Protein backbone atom coordinates (compact mmCIF):
# COMPACT_ATOMS: atom_id res chain seq x y z
CA UNK A 1 0.00 0.00 0.00
CA UNK A 2 1.41 3.39 -0.90
CA UNK A 3 0.65 6.73 0.63
CA UNK A 4 1.92 6.07 4.16
CA UNK A 5 4.12 8.98 5.25
CA UNK A 6 5.36 7.74 8.63
CA UNK A 7 6.88 4.54 9.98
CA UNK A 8 5.58 2.48 12.86
CA UNK A 9 6.71 3.94 16.26
CA UNK A 10 7.67 7.33 14.78
CA UNK A 11 7.01 10.33 17.04
CA UNK A 12 4.30 12.49 15.43
CA UNK A 13 2.95 15.96 16.17
CA UNK A 14 -0.53 17.49 16.09
CA UNK A 15 -1.48 18.42 12.51
CA UNK A 16 1.10 16.11 10.95
CA UNK A 17 -0.12 14.20 7.89
CA UNK A 18 0.39 10.50 8.58
CA UNK A 19 -0.94 9.04 5.34
CA UNK A 20 -2.29 10.29 2.04
CA UNK A 21 -4.47 7.55 0.69
CA UNK A 22 -8.08 6.43 0.96
CA UNK A 23 -6.80 2.90 1.67
CA UNK A 24 -5.81 3.76 5.25
CA UNK A 25 -8.31 4.10 8.09
CA UNK A 26 -8.03 6.51 11.04
CA UNK A 27 -7.69 4.93 14.49
CA UNK A 28 -7.53 6.57 17.94
CA UNK A 29 -6.51 10.26 17.96
CA UNK A 30 -6.24 10.37 14.15
CA UNK A 31 -8.74 12.17 11.91
CA UNK A 32 -9.49 12.01 8.19
CA UNK A 33 -9.46 15.17 6.07
CA UNK A 34 -10.37 14.13 2.50
CA UNK A 35 -7.58 11.68 1.58
CA UNK A 36 -5.27 12.67 4.40
CA UNK A 37 -4.98 11.07 7.82
CA UNK A 38 -3.94 13.72 10.34
CA UNK A 39 -2.63 13.32 13.88
CA UNK A 40 -4.45 15.28 16.60
CA UNK A 41 -1.95 14.78 19.43
CA UNK A 42 1.74 14.38 20.14
CA UNK A 43 2.43 10.68 20.31
CA UNK A 44 3.90 7.54 18.77
CA UNK A 45 2.41 6.33 15.47
CA UNK A 46 1.13 2.77 15.50
CA UNK A 47 0.35 1.12 12.18
CA UNK A 48 -1.61 -2.09 12.19
CA UNK A 49 -2.49 -3.21 8.66
CA UNK A 50 -4.74 -0.51 7.24
CA UNK A 51 -5.30 1.16 10.62
CA UNK A 52 -3.20 4.17 11.56
CA UNK A 53 -3.55 5.22 15.19
CA UNK A 54 -1.31 6.90 17.73
CA UNK A 55 -0.39 6.32 21.32
CA UNK A 56 -0.40 9.78 22.96
CA UNK A 57 2.70 10.80 24.92
CA UNK A 58 0.81 13.33 26.98
CA UNK A 59 -2.71 14.57 27.58
CA UNK A 60 -5.44 14.79 30.19
CA UNK A 61 -7.35 11.85 31.58
CA UNK A 62 -10.60 11.22 29.71
CA UNK A 63 -13.04 9.12 31.75
CA UNK A 64 -14.26 5.87 30.22
CA UNK A 65 -16.80 3.39 31.48
CA UNK A 66 -15.31 0.51 33.53
CA UNK A 67 -12.08 2.42 34.29
CA UNK A 68 -10.76 2.01 37.84
CA UNK A 69 -9.78 5.43 39.16
CA UNK A 70 -8.55 6.91 42.45
CA UNK A 71 -10.66 9.92 43.40
CA UNK A 72 -10.57 12.43 46.24
CA UNK A 73 -13.77 13.34 48.08
CA UNK A 74 -14.36 17.04 47.47
CA UNK A 75 -18.07 17.33 48.16
CA UNK A 76 -20.81 15.67 50.17
CA UNK A 77 -24.45 16.10 49.13
CA UNK A 78 -27.81 14.75 50.28
CA UNK A 79 -27.55 11.50 48.41
CA UNK A 80 -23.88 10.88 47.87
CA UNK A 81 -20.38 12.19 47.39
CA UNK A 82 -18.61 14.20 44.71
CA UNK A 83 -15.11 13.10 43.77
CA UNK A 84 -12.25 14.79 41.97
CA UNK A 85 -10.94 12.22 39.50
CA UNK A 86 -8.69 14.58 37.53
CA UNK A 87 -11.34 15.40 34.92
CA UNK A 88 -12.74 18.89 34.30
CA UNK A 89 -15.95 18.00 36.15
CA UNK A 90 -16.46 16.20 39.44
CA UNK A 91 -17.80 12.64 39.38
CA UNK A 92 -20.80 11.42 41.44
CA UNK A 93 -20.75 8.54 43.86
CA UNK A 94 -24.33 7.77 44.78
CA UNK A 95 -25.28 6.30 48.19
CA UNK A 96 -26.66 3.13 46.64
CA UNK A 97 -23.42 2.59 44.68
CA UNK A 98 -21.20 3.28 47.69
CA UNK A 99 -22.44 0.95 50.41
CA UNK A 100 -24.91 -1.83 51.06
CA UNK A 101 -25.68 -0.44 54.55
CA UNK A 102 -29.07 1.06 55.31
CA UNK A 103 -28.53 4.79 55.73
CA UNK A 104 -31.28 6.87 57.28
CA UNK A 105 -32.41 10.08 55.66
CA UNK A 106 -30.27 12.98 56.87
CA UNK A 107 -27.52 10.73 58.33
CA UNK A 108 -23.97 12.05 58.61
CA UNK A 109 -22.27 10.79 55.45
CA UNK A 110 -18.80 11.75 56.68
CA UNK A 111 -18.92 8.56 58.80
CA UNK A 112 -18.44 6.64 55.56
CA UNK A 113 -16.27 8.91 53.44
CA UNK A 114 -15.05 12.30 54.66
CA UNK A 115 -13.66 15.28 52.80
CA UNK A 116 -10.13 14.58 51.54
CA UNK A 117 -10.50 10.79 51.65
CA UNK A 118 -9.07 8.92 48.67
CA UNK A 119 -11.29 6.18 47.22
CA UNK A 120 -10.51 3.50 44.72
CA UNK A 121 -13.64 3.53 42.58
CA UNK A 122 -14.89 2.28 39.25
CA UNK A 123 -16.61 4.37 36.59
CA UNK A 124 -20.04 2.80 36.13
CA UNK A 125 -21.39 5.21 33.58
CA UNK A 126 -20.32 8.21 31.53
CA UNK A 127 -23.60 9.89 30.62
CA UNK A 128 -22.05 13.11 29.33
CA UNK A 129 -18.88 15.08 29.89
CA UNK A 130 -20.48 16.61 32.99
CA UNK A 131 -22.18 13.53 34.43
CA UNK A 132 -19.93 10.66 35.45
CA UNK A 133 -21.20 7.97 37.81
CA UNK A 134 -18.91 6.00 40.09
CA UNK A 135 -19.37 2.77 41.98
CA UNK A 136 -17.70 1.05 44.92
CA UNK A 137 -19.48 -2.25 44.32
CA UNK A 138 -16.81 -4.39 42.70
CA UNK A 139 -13.92 -6.42 44.09
CA UNK A 140 -10.91 -4.35 45.18
CA UNK A 141 -12.76 -1.03 45.35
CA UNK A 142 -12.27 0.57 48.75
CA UNK A 143 -11.31 3.59 50.79
CA UNK A 144 -7.53 3.93 50.78
CA UNK A 145 -5.63 4.05 54.06
CA UNK A 146 -2.53 5.95 55.11
CA UNK A 147 0.06 6.35 52.38
CA UNK A 148 1.62 8.60 49.82
CA UNK A 149 -0.27 9.90 46.82
CA UNK A 150 1.64 10.73 43.66
CA UNK A 151 0.27 11.85 40.31
CA UNK A 152 1.55 10.67 36.94
CA UNK A 153 0.37 11.35 33.39
CA UNK A 154 -2.66 9.20 32.63
CA UNK A 155 -1.15 8.24 29.26
CA UNK A 156 1.70 6.52 31.13
CA UNK A 157 -0.56 4.35 33.29
CA UNK A 158 -0.61 1.35 30.87
CA UNK A 159 3.22 1.25 30.98
CA UNK A 160 3.28 1.52 34.79
CA UNK A 161 0.88 -1.42 35.06
CA UNK A 162 2.54 -3.40 32.24
CA UNK A 163 1.19 -6.40 30.37
CA UNK A 164 -1.22 -8.20 32.69
CA UNK A 165 0.18 -6.17 35.58
CA UNK A 166 3.75 -7.41 35.08
CA UNK A 167 5.51 -4.08 35.69
CA UNK A 168 3.62 -3.05 38.81
CA UNK A 169 3.95 -6.59 40.23
CA UNK A 170 7.71 -6.38 39.70
CA UNK A 171 7.89 -3.07 41.61
CA UNK A 172 5.72 -4.50 44.40
CA UNK A 173 7.92 -7.60 44.66
CA UNK A 174 11.18 -5.67 44.80
CA UNK A 175 10.03 -2.94 47.18
CA UNK A 176 7.47 -4.81 49.27
CA UNK A 177 5.15 -1.80 49.00
CA UNK A 178 1.40 -1.89 48.56
CA UNK A 179 0.62 0.10 45.42
CA UNK A 180 -2.68 1.01 43.77
CA UNK A 181 -2.74 2.68 40.37
CA UNK A 182 -5.82 4.48 39.03
CA UNK A 183 -6.37 4.86 35.29
CA UNK A 184 -6.55 8.62 35.96
CA UNK A 185 -2.85 8.67 36.93
CA UNK A 186 -3.26 8.82 40.71
CA UNK A 187 -0.99 6.32 42.47
CA UNK A 188 -1.25 5.34 46.15
CA UNK A 189 1.84 3.86 47.80
CA UNK A 190 2.26 2.42 51.28
CA UNK A 191 5.44 0.69 52.36
CA UNK A 192 7.09 -0.62 55.50
CA UNK A 193 9.89 1.94 55.43
CA UNK A 194 10.49 5.38 53.87
CA UNK A 195 13.38 3.93 51.84
CA UNK A 196 11.16 1.30 50.21
CA UNK A 197 8.47 3.86 49.44
CA UNK A 198 11.06 6.18 47.96
CA UNK A 199 12.37 3.40 45.71
CA UNK A 200 8.82 2.64 44.53
CA UNK A 201 8.24 6.35 43.74
CA UNK A 202 11.54 6.60 41.88
CA UNK A 203 10.68 3.48 39.87
CA UNK A 204 7.32 4.93 38.86
CA UNK A 205 8.91 8.26 37.94
CA UNK A 206 11.51 6.40 35.85
CA UNK A 207 8.79 4.54 33.96
CA UNK A 208 6.97 7.83 33.40
CA UNK A 209 10.10 9.43 31.96
CA UNK A 210 11.19 6.52 29.81
CA UNK A 211 7.90 4.90 28.79
CA UNK A 212 8.42 5.62 25.07
CA UNK A 213 11.84 3.92 24.87
CA UNK A 214 12.05 0.23 23.95
CA UNK A 215 13.24 -2.40 26.45
CA UNK A 216 11.70 -0.73 29.49
CA UNK A 217 10.96 -3.94 31.43
CA UNK A 218 14.59 -5.10 31.27
CA UNK A 219 15.88 -1.69 32.26
CA UNK A 220 13.47 -1.51 35.18
CA UNK A 221 14.52 -4.94 36.38
CA UNK A 222 18.17 -3.91 36.20
CA UNK A 223 17.39 -0.63 38.02
CA UNK A 224 15.50 -2.34 40.83
CA UNK A 225 18.18 -5.05 41.24
CA UNK A 226 20.87 -2.38 41.47
CA UNK A 227 18.94 -0.21 43.91
CA UNK A 228 18.02 -3.09 46.17
CA UNK A 229 21.67 -3.96 46.86
Amino acid sequence: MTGLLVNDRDIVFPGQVLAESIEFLPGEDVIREKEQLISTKIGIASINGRFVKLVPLTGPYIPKRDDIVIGKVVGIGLNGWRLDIGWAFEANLNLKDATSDFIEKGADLTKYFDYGDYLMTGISNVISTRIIDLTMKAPGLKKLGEGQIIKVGSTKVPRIIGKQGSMITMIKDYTGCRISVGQNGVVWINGDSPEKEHLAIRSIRKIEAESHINGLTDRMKEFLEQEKK
Partner: protein
Amino acid sequence: MSDIVRKHTLKLLEQNTRSDLRKLDEYRTITLEYGAVGGAEGSARVKIGDTDVLAGVKFEVGKPFPDTPDQGSIMVNAELRPMSSPDFEPGPPNIKAIEMARVIDRALREGGAIDFKKLCIKEGEAMWMVIVDIYPINDAGNLFDAASLAALAAIKDAKFPKMDAQNKIDYHESTNKKIEMGTMPLSCTIYNIGGKIIVDPTSQEEELCDARITVGVLENGTMSSLQKGGEYGLTIDQVNEMVDVAIKKSKDLRKVMQK
Protein backbone atom coordinates in the same frame (compact mmCIF):
# COMPACT_ATOMS: atom_id res chain seq x y z
CA MET B 1 -5.07 18.35 52.71
CA SER B 2 -6.10 14.74 52.71
CA ASP B 3 -6.04 13.04 56.09
CA ILE B 4 -4.08 10.02 54.83
CA VAL B 5 -1.33 12.16 53.32
CA ARG B 6 -1.15 14.36 56.44
CA LYS B 7 -0.78 11.37 58.75
CA HIS B 8 1.83 9.82 56.52
CA THR B 9 3.92 13.00 56.22
CA LEU B 10 3.79 13.56 60.00
CA LYS B 11 4.79 9.93 60.61
CA LEU B 12 7.84 10.37 58.38
CA LEU B 13 8.82 13.59 60.18
CA GLU B 14 8.51 11.74 63.51
CA GLN B 15 11.13 9.33 62.16
CA ASN B 16 13.33 12.35 61.29
CA THR B 17 13.04 11.71 57.57
CA ARG B 18 10.93 12.88 54.64
CA SER B 19 9.26 11.34 51.60
CA ASP B 20 12.36 12.03 49.48
CA LEU B 21 14.65 10.67 52.25
CA ARG B 22 16.20 14.08 53.03
CA LYS B 23 17.24 14.98 56.57
CA LEU B 24 15.07 17.61 58.26
CA ASP B 25 17.74 20.31 57.79
CA GLU B 26 18.74 19.35 54.27
CA TYR B 27 18.03 21.42 51.14
CA ARG B 28 17.18 19.89 47.78
CA THR B 29 19.72 20.46 44.97
CA ILE B 30 20.05 24.19 44.34
CA THR B 31 21.09 25.61 40.97
CA LEU B 32 21.55 29.24 40.05
CA GLU B 33 21.80 30.66 36.54
CA TYR B 34 22.77 34.30 36.04
CA GLY B 35 21.45 36.29 33.06
CA ALA B 36 18.49 34.02 32.36
CA VAL B 37 16.40 36.77 30.72
CA GLY B 38 17.90 38.68 27.80
CA GLY B 39 15.56 41.68 27.98
CA ALA B 40 16.24 42.55 31.61
CA GLU B 41 19.20 44.56 32.90
CA GLY B 42 19.93 41.77 35.34
CA SER B 43 18.31 38.40 35.94
CA ALA B 44 18.69 35.05 37.62
CA ARG B 45 16.90 31.74 37.64
CA VAL B 46 17.00 29.60 40.77
CA LYS B 47 15.92 26.00 41.05
CA ILE B 48 15.54 24.28 44.41
CA GLY B 49 14.49 20.75 43.53
CA ASP B 50 11.44 21.21 41.30
CA THR B 51 10.81 24.75 42.52
CA ASP B 52 11.79 27.16 39.77
CA VAL B 53 11.90 30.94 40.16
CA LEU B 54 12.90 33.69 37.77
CA ALA B 55 13.86 37.19 38.93
CA GLY B 56 14.59 40.20 36.74
CA VAL B 57 15.88 43.70 37.41
CA LYS B 58 14.87 46.84 35.49
CA PHE B 59 16.15 50.38 36.06
CA GLU B 60 14.12 53.55 35.91
CA VAL B 61 14.97 57.16 36.57
CA GLY B 62 12.75 58.89 39.12
CA LYS B 63 12.59 61.82 41.48
CA PRO B 64 14.07 61.12 44.95
CA PHE B 65 11.68 60.97 47.88
CA PRO B 66 11.59 64.25 49.91
CA ASP B 67 12.93 62.58 53.08
CA THR B 68 15.87 60.97 51.24
CA PRO B 69 16.85 63.48 48.52
CA ASP B 70 20.31 61.94 48.08
CA GLN B 71 19.26 58.30 47.77
CA GLY B 72 17.92 55.94 45.14
CA SER B 73 15.30 53.31 45.85
CA ILE B 74 14.33 49.70 45.34
CA MET B 75 10.97 48.13 44.60
CA VAL B 76 10.31 44.41 44.84
CA ASN B 77 7.28 42.90 43.17
CA ALA B 78 6.23 39.23 43.11
CA GLU B 79 3.52 37.71 40.97
CA LEU B 80 2.28 34.20 41.55
CA ARG B 81 0.96 33.17 38.14
CA PRO B 82 -1.57 30.31 37.87
CA MET B 83 0.76 28.37 35.55
CA SER B 84 3.18 27.80 38.41
CA SER B 85 0.78 26.13 40.84
CA PRO B 86 -2.84 24.94 40.91
CA ASP B 87 -3.28 26.98 44.11
CA PHE B 88 -2.59 30.34 42.44
CA GLU B 89 -5.43 32.29 40.84
CA PRO B 90 -5.29 34.96 38.15
CA GLY B 91 -5.81 38.57 39.18
CA PRO B 92 -4.02 41.14 41.31
CA PRO B 93 -1.28 39.88 43.70
CA ASN B 94 -2.77 37.97 46.62
CA ILE B 95 -1.65 38.08 50.24
CA LYS B 96 1.04 35.42 49.71
CA ALA B 97 2.60 37.34 46.80
CA ILE B 98 2.51 40.61 48.75
CA GLU B 99 4.06 38.97 51.82
CA MET B 100 6.81 37.37 49.75
CA ALA B 101 7.68 40.65 48.02
CA ARG B 102 7.68 42.51 51.35
CA VAL B 103 9.86 39.93 53.11
CA ILE B 104 12.43 39.96 50.31
CA ASP B 105 12.32 43.77 50.14
CA ARG B 106 12.88 43.94 53.91
CA ALA B 107 15.83 41.55 53.81
CA LEU B 108 17.51 43.48 50.96
CA ARG B 109 16.81 46.92 52.41
CA GLU B 110 17.57 46.31 56.08
CA GLY B 111 20.49 44.04 55.28
CA GLY B 112 22.15 46.84 53.32
CA ALA B 113 22.41 44.95 50.03
CA ILE B 114 22.51 48.20 48.06
CA ASP B 115 24.20 51.46 48.93
CA PHE B 116 21.28 53.75 48.07
CA LYS B 117 23.44 56.87 48.06
CA LYS B 118 25.30 55.46 45.06
CA LEU B 119 22.00 55.33 43.17
CA CYS B 120 21.52 59.10 43.38
CA ILE B 121 22.07 60.84 40.03
CA LYS B 122 21.47 64.45 41.17
CA GLU B 123 20.44 65.31 44.71
CA GLY B 124 16.76 66.17 44.95
CA GLU B 125 16.26 65.80 41.20
CA ALA B 126 17.04 62.37 39.83
CA MET B 127 17.81 58.91 41.14
CA TRP B 128 17.94 55.32 39.92
CA MET B 129 15.03 53.09 40.90
CA VAL B 130 15.90 49.41 40.99
CA ILE B 131 12.79 47.36 40.18
CA VAL B 132 12.99 43.66 41.01
CA ASP B 133 10.29 41.41 39.52
CA ILE B 134 9.90 37.86 40.77
CA TYR B 135 8.05 35.24 38.77
CA PRO B 136 7.82 31.65 40.00
CA ILE B 137 7.79 29.19 37.09
CA ASN B 138 6.95 26.20 39.26
CA ASP B 139 6.03 26.08 42.93
CA ALA B 140 7.10 22.79 44.49
CA GLY B 141 7.59 24.31 47.95
CA ASN B 142 9.92 26.85 49.59
CA LEU B 143 9.27 29.72 47.20
CA PHE B 144 10.54 32.19 49.81
CA ASP B 145 14.15 30.99 49.77
CA ALA B 146 14.25 30.46 46.00
CA ALA B 147 12.78 33.92 45.34
CA SER B 148 15.12 35.62 47.80
CA LEU B 149 18.17 33.95 46.26
CA ALA B 150 16.97 34.81 42.73
CA ALA B 151 16.30 38.46 43.66
CA LEU B 152 19.73 38.94 45.21
CA ALA B 153 21.46 37.19 42.30
CA ALA B 154 19.53 39.30 39.75
CA ILE B 155 20.66 42.51 41.50
CA LYS B 156 24.23 41.23 41.53
CA ASP B 157 23.94 40.47 37.79
CA ALA B 158 22.39 43.85 36.83
CA LYS B 159 24.23 46.39 34.66
CA PHE B 160 23.07 49.99 34.32
CA PRO B 161 21.61 50.89 30.92
CA LYS B 162 22.99 53.83 28.92
CA MET B 163 21.58 57.24 29.81
CA ASP B 164 21.91 60.57 27.97
CA ALA B 165 22.36 64.06 29.46
CA GLN B 166 18.57 64.56 29.70
CA ASN B 167 18.32 61.44 31.91
CA LYS B 168 16.68 59.47 29.10
CA ILE B 169 17.46 55.76 29.24
CA ASP B 170 18.38 53.69 26.20
CA TYR B 171 17.41 50.17 27.27
CA HIS B 172 18.98 48.64 24.14
CA GLU B 173 22.48 49.54 25.25
CA SER B 174 24.03 48.66 28.56
CA THR B 175 27.10 49.95 30.31
CA ASN B 176 29.55 47.78 32.23
CA LYS B 177 28.68 49.51 35.49
CA LYS B 178 27.12 47.27 38.10
CA ILE B 179 25.22 48.08 41.26
CA GLU B 180 27.64 48.49 44.15
CA MET B 181 26.61 45.83 46.57
CA GLY B 182 27.10 46.21 50.29
CA THR B 183 26.50 43.10 52.32
CA MET B 184 24.76 40.09 50.83
CA PRO B 185 21.67 39.45 52.97
CA LEU B 186 20.15 36.04 52.24
CA SER B 187 16.78 34.86 53.48
CA CYS B 188 16.47 31.43 55.00
CA THR B 189 13.03 30.14 55.93
CA ILE B 190 12.60 27.63 58.72
CA TYR B 191 9.34 25.75 59.24
CA ASN B 192 7.78 24.22 62.31
CA ILE B 193 5.58 21.22 61.55
CA GLY B 194 4.14 19.36 64.52
CA GLY B 195 7.07 20.44 66.75
CA LYS B 196 9.69 19.40 64.19
CA ILE B 197 11.92 22.08 62.73
CA ILE B 198 12.61 21.64 59.04
CA VAL B 199 14.09 23.56 56.10
CA ASP B 200 13.15 23.53 52.42
CA PRO B 201 9.73 21.88 52.61
CA THR B 202 7.95 20.42 49.59
CA SER B 203 4.53 21.90 48.81
CA GLN B 204 2.93 18.95 50.61
CA GLU B 205 4.93 19.68 53.77
CA GLU B 206 4.26 23.41 53.42
CA GLU B 207 0.52 22.75 53.70
CA LEU B 208 1.11 21.19 57.13
CA CYS B 209 3.18 24.11 58.40
CA ASP B 210 2.19 25.37 61.87
CA ALA B 211 4.55 28.33 61.85
CA ARG B 212 7.48 29.61 59.85
CA ILE B 213 10.21 32.17 60.32
CA THR B 214 12.09 33.86 57.49
CA VAL B 215 15.43 35.10 58.73
CA GLY B 216 17.59 37.53 56.77
CA VAL B 217 21.23 36.63 57.44
CA LEU B 218 24.30 38.70 56.56
CA GLU B 219 27.67 37.32 55.45
CA ASN B 220 29.09 37.50 58.96
CA GLY B 221 26.16 35.50 60.35
CA THR B 222 24.29 38.51 61.78
CA MET B 223 20.51 38.47 61.63
CA SER B 224 19.18 41.47 59.70
CA SER B 225 15.45 40.84 59.33
CA LEU B 226 12.79 38.51 60.62
CA GLN B 227 9.29 37.58 59.54
CA LYS B 228 6.96 35.17 61.32
CA GLY B 229 4.26 33.43 59.33
CA GLY B 230 1.79 30.60 59.85
CA GLU B 231 -1.22 30.30 62.13
CA TYR B 232 0.36 28.99 65.34
CA GLY B 233 2.69 30.54 67.87
CA LEU B 234 6.24 29.59 68.80
CA THR B 235 8.04 29.36 72.13
CA ILE B 236 11.18 31.42 72.79
CA ASP B 237 13.28 28.24 72.65
CA GLN B 238 11.78 27.29 69.29
CA VAL B 239 12.48 30.76 67.88
CA ASN B 240 16.08 30.59 69.11
CA GLU B 241 16.55 27.15 67.60
CA MET B 242 15.00 28.21 64.28
CA VAL B 243 17.21 31.30 64.05
CA ASP B 244 20.30 29.18 64.78
CA VAL B 245 19.34 26.73 62.02
CA ALA B 246 18.71 29.66 59.61
CA ILE B 247 22.14 31.16 60.28
CA LYS B 248 23.76 27.75 59.78
CA LYS B 249 21.84 26.90 56.59
CA SER B 250 22.31 30.35 55.02
CA LYS B 251 25.95 29.34 54.51
CA ASP B 252 24.78 26.61 52.11
CA LEU B 253 22.75 29.14 50.13
CA ARG B 254 25.68 31.53 50.05
CA LYS B 255 27.93 28.84 48.56
CA VAL B 256 25.51 28.57 45.61
CA MET B 257 25.83 32.32 44.96
CA GLN B 258 29.59 32.17 44.94
CA LYS B 259 29.82 29.38 42.35
